[in-house]
């Protein structure tokens, strides 16, 4: 069996098996899997509106997954995508509602602000890791809480309430064409931003000397140092770029989906799901498209399961988790396929 065919086959098999196990759980709990999955399907592809919303949901996952994957390529585990996203969201919204600028300046400025805020948030664990060898996992987790509560405080201080004012039209990623063809879903131009980011990151990693250094440092710090690379600098650069991407994910929420920023009772979850997205995509920028699509579609589509099939939300979470679990265990299928092809050889 060719390698490329196998790479496609394994995730498909995994999704199917996940669906089957999910169905069994629904059956045991007394719900109809057919009704349940119909509701899931309709929730994702049911009509133009849901398709638009599904793609909208995929957008921040793409960027968050990309952020995790990029850091991972350099051997860093960025658990702080969540916090970097939150500060990015705030920064984009702040620029969006407090400045009055022409659109061609306003949108780039707001996006840049979000990226820089995220990058700054990742710079802290990056420099601590590079200079003092502090574990980036611990620092990034703590930075998430700092991000959450500082932005909450800032929003209250600026707006005097829990929700900021709306961003100006000139900063909005709204796309009227998208709205018309998707029955007025919230699908916005952020998807282009995300896809461009995928291509840019792929290019950096695969084609540039920067990517060459970052990956070398990720694989073998000693050899990188010996080859004259500045390992510390590369660690910081990698974290900052990762944080920049996470900040962009926040920008798509601030300028596209919500067009404002509000205080949060807890984490958004997108940053953490980004870890799963990156792993599903094998930390490969193009793989992240697959991971984000699967994650976004299931997340958004499953919202329809309680309404249409009467399955409780908790049950829905379990089923979605199982499907993702099976996809993540892709290697099981690898083994299975290996055995299958071996048997054929014997014959």
């Amino acid at each position, binding site marked *: 069996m060719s390698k490329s065919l196998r790479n496609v086959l394994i995730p498909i098999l995994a999704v199917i098996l996940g669906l089957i196990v999910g169905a069994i759980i629904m059956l045991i709990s007394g719900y109809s899997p057919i009704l349940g999955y119909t509701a899931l399907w309709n929730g994702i592809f049911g009509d133009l509106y849901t398709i638009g919303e599904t793609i909208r949901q995929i957008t921040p996952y793409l960027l968050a997954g990309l952020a995790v994957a990029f850091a991972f390529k350099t051997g860093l585990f960025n658990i702080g995508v969540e916090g970097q996203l939150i500060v990015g969201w705030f920064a984009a919204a702040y620029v969006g509602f407090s400045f009055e600028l022409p659109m061609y300046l306003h949108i780039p400025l707001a996006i840049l602000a979000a990226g820089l805020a995220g990058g700054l948030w990742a710079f802290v664990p990056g420099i601590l890791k590079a200079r003092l060898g502090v574990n980036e996992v611990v620092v990034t987790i703590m930075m998430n809480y700092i991000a959450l509560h500082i932005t909450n405080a800032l929003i209250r201080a600026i707006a005097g309430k829990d929700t900021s004012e709306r961003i100006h039209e000139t900063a909005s990623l709204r796309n009227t064409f998208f709205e018309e063809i998707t029955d007025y879903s919230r699908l916005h131009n952020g998807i282009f931003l995300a896809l461009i980011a995928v291509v840019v990151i792929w290019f950096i990693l695969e084609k*540039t*000397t920067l990517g060459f250094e970052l990956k070398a440092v990720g694989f073998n710090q000693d050899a990188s140092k*010996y*080859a004259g690379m500045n390992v510390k600098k590369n660690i910081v650069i990698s974290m900052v770029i990762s944080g920049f991407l996470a900040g962009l994910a926040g920008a798509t929420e601030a300028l596209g989906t919500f067009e404002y920023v509000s205080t949060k009772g807890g984490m958004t979850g997108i940053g953490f799901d980004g870890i799963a997205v990156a792993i599903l995509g094998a930390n490969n920028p193009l793989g992240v498209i697959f991971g984000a699509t699967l994650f976004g579609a299931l997340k958004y589509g499953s919202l329809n399961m309680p309404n249409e099939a009467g399955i409780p939300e908790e049950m829905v979470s379990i089923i979605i988790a199982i499907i993702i679990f099976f996809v993540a265990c892709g290697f099981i299928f690898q083994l299975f396929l290996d055995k299958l092809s071996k048997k054929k050889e014997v014959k």
Partner: protein
Amino acid sequence: MEHVIEMLNIRKVFGNFVANDNITLQVKKGEIHALLGENGAGKSTLMNVLFGLYQPDGGEIRVKGKSVNITDPNVANDLGIGMVHQHFMLVDNFTVTENIILGSEPTKRGSIDIKTASEEIARISKNYGLDVDPYAVISDISVGMQQRVEILKTLYRGAEILIFDEPTATLTPQEITELIQIMKRLIEEGKSIILITHKLKEIMEVADRVTVIRRGKGIGTVNVSETNPTELASLMVGRDVEFTTEKRQSNPKEEVFRISDLLVKDYRGVEKIKGLNLSIRRGEILGIAGVDGNGQTELIEAITGLRKVESGSITLNNKDITNLRPRKITESGIGHIPQDRHKHGLVLNYSVGENVALQSYYHAPYSKAGVLNYKVIYEKAREIISQYDVRTQSEYELARALSGGNQQKVIIGREVERNPDLLIAAQPTRGLDVGAIEFIHKRLIEQRDNGKAVLLISFELDEILNVSDRIAVIFEGEIIDIVDAKHTSEQELGLLMAGQKLTKDSTVQSLQKEGE
């Protein structure tokens, strides 16, 4: 004499690759039986079949005359087969005893009975003259001692037949001598040993018989007493091999590299290089001989910019390169074949081509404005692959997939092609077979003949004597003497390496002692 192990017509196939093609190996009781072959000849595969890690596709294994089916290492253990791996399988922060009983912990009322086990281990250790402290923590003891723990582990589990996989690869000359004594002691106690190696000298020294394999095929078994290293080498490689590389008289020119009063500390702040002086001229190879741990590592790291120089100076072409960044030093004209090719020399998960570009990716023609030109990179890689005889499927193959010798050729190709004024070669042939060693020595001498300076650091006296023009002996961070390679001997170097500068008479005396 009866055979304890018989592997008859063993065949093992991986995909389309025949790793073992009907190899027969018969080991007599109480002998040291060497298994000789180049890297990748199929020695490890054969031993993994015997140890139950692989299932043979054909052939028969008999232990003490009985046909057996070794399905996994536990079966091998039960049959009295123990393996001393090349890369030790030890938990670093466990004690010797804890490591040895790991997997079959003896218990007393539900808790592990360390005391009884330690006593038993101490008894076995004494019996075989291993001198291992059962309560020592692995990370605190030397590599040679760790290997003895591996030996103890197999003995503790009742092994009768011990397989040693390249046991001397990581040992110092001193430790090798001790290991050889241990092996002889094991034989006296009635054990049998299979010694996997590609070092002919060791075979001549300890083995009774030797089975040679070449490219997966058994070439035959000979008595060591009836053969010689030259014959063994040509059996192994399939052609005649030269041990001493032919070289012209050196023709040294002006001085190119100088170290003055160098002082370097190790990571604990201990002075490892204490006022070292050295100078190398164009067109000569300076060998540095010394026992491991006398400052060789720190010296190389200081020259290449990986370690801070406390005081003193290093100059290349009359330019001060002391404490510059590694890249500045490389650019000033130093090439470096590092001691540990996996740790420093290569990014194993990068392709051969990417590794070829590892030192030069950032400038033209390999990249332009930060964008890599893979076409040029892979072209260069193909050039090095063909010029340096790197056996690889392609330039896109991961460095990880290459054998040690071929990995080393990639590094040498990369460094030599950069045309450095000074080439530092640290243990350049460690773990390689005779064919690869010959090739690498030739390349070093070629550099010399092209008017470059070469600094060779090696723990192998043979290599130092064979390749160098002048030999500097390092002892406790200082060069205690510099001798002419043509007018010295292994014996003289050995004494210098031990820190002794003796008169002729006492040299003879201590030689006699050594010979006893």
